[in-house]
């Protein structure tokens, strides 16, 4: 299963896009003024691709994810999925966003409950994901007893359990300390390779974007426009020390220049 990710990227590029975003505009009314959050955003996303939107705060990153999740209607343009059914979305939020009255297991199985999967099957699947994110033994813990990193792992497991067509990550590691964050990069990278998910992540960390993504798209500050679309041709699986290579440094420099 993991082998697929070692194939050359050209294989991936031959797959048809599962999502095309065309001339997307989102404008908010702010009093008498119009606030343009996103302007003319166009990109295509292929199955199993991991793309990262990089930008400063106020570049409309979260707005873009909300449009893809169907939570925000675009003012103009559209985000269109090339799928047979309505797209299933898995979403990971900046704060873990768990239900405090549910245990770890109950939080993780929520998406299956909503789909009407039988409780026994949902629990079985949730247990599988608990193993995947390394939370065995915490099935019956409540969110208030979890550390930030553990809570975020629960959030990730919940986003994956219903086998979504698209995984949306909204700065999922922004609230974690630096060491936990870097460990989570490794884990996410592993899970992504194992599960073969299509991912859109937004972040303001250049290192995070380069370490995880196949492609990094830089958004400008208000209004958010795509300023750079940089393919990341680093071999996978990426080890920690990929960040100290010359190639990584060069790309980081390019991204940094694009942001400013």
């Amino acid at each position: 299963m993991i082998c697929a990710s070692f194939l050359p990227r050209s294989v991936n590029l031959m797959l048809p896009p599962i999502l095309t975003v065309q001339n997307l505009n989102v404008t908010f009314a702010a009093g008498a003024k119009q606030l343009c959050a996103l302007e003319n955003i166009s990109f295509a996303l292929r199955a199993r691709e991991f793309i990262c939107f990089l930008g400063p705060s106020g570049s409309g990153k979260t707005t873009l994810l909300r449009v893809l999740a169907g939570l925000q209607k675009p003012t103009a343009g559209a985000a269109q999925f090339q799928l047979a059914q309505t797209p299933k979305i898995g979403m990971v939020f900046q704060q873990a966003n768990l239900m405090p009255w549910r245990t770890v297991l109950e939080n993780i199985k929520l998406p299956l409950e909503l789909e009407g999967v039988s409780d026994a099957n949902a629990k079985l699947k949730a247990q599988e994901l608990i193993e995947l994110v390394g939370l065995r033994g915490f099935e019956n813990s409540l969110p208030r007893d979890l550390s930030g990193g553990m809570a975020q792992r629960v959030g990730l497991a919940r986003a994956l359990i219903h086998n979504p067509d698209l995984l949306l990550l909204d700065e999922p590691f922004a609230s974690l300390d630096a060491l936990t964050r870097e460990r989570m990069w490794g884990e996410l990278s592993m899970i992504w390779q194992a599960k073969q998910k299509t991912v859109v992540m937004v972040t303001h960390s250049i290192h995070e974007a380069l370490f995880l993504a196949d492609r990094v798209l830089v958004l400008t500050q208000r209004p958010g426009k795509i300023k750079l679309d940089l393919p990341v041709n680093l071999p996978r699986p990426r080890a920690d020390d990929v960040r100290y290579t010359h190639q990584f440094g060069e790309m980081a420099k390019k991204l940094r220049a694009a942001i400013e």
Partner: protein
Amino acid sequence: MKPFISRLLGVGSILLFIPLWELIVRVSGLPKFILPSPADVALRFVKALADGSLWIHTGQTLTEILLGLFFGASFATILGYFLAKSYLLESILAPYLVASQAIPIVAVAPLLALWLGPGSASKVLICSLIVFFPILVNTIVGVRAVPAALYDLLRALHATRWQILFKLEIPAALPVLLGGLRVGATLSVIGAIVGELVDAKQGLGFLLKLGDFQYDTSMVFVAVLMLAALALSLYGLVTLLEKKFLKWMK
């Protein structure tokens, strides 16, 4: 302090109260119709229990309280939910709701008794009205406090309206809802008594008035103690509900 010691002290202070009461009666030498002794009250209690009258009156009042609480709390919760969801509805209804609070329910009790007669209907209505507002306000506060990010999560997962209600809104608002019910439960006892004091043929309020007219002060004490017991039981019931449903809050 250990919970066991704290409970022991609580029981001890109640046990100390009875001899103190007895002492006051003896030292002051007040007649029985002004201040009966604990023994007088206990005797009267047994007598009322034996002739069955206490059961009938307590049952009557309890029925009014529970019906009033049920109607008042249900209506307040349902209306509160829609008010929480719609600022438009809130703007339209707010003047009436505020005005209704400006009128002391106790003051309109005679009117309600006049219109609805001396039966239980007027008591149930007064009860409902008195518990209505605190539960309404708590429902609005509770439903509005449901985190927006959790709504996003459920909508992104294509949850239905009912799934959002049962899997998110009710459990998230439950601590505040039960807080409102706790206030409502104690208020409902007041509502029933006010109604019965105005005009009734039965109930603890009626017993209270009867004892007062007949200088049977021991009976007044019995009625008051029964009312306190009812209020405490209701309060305890809500606490039990909280223990069962809010385990996650500890």
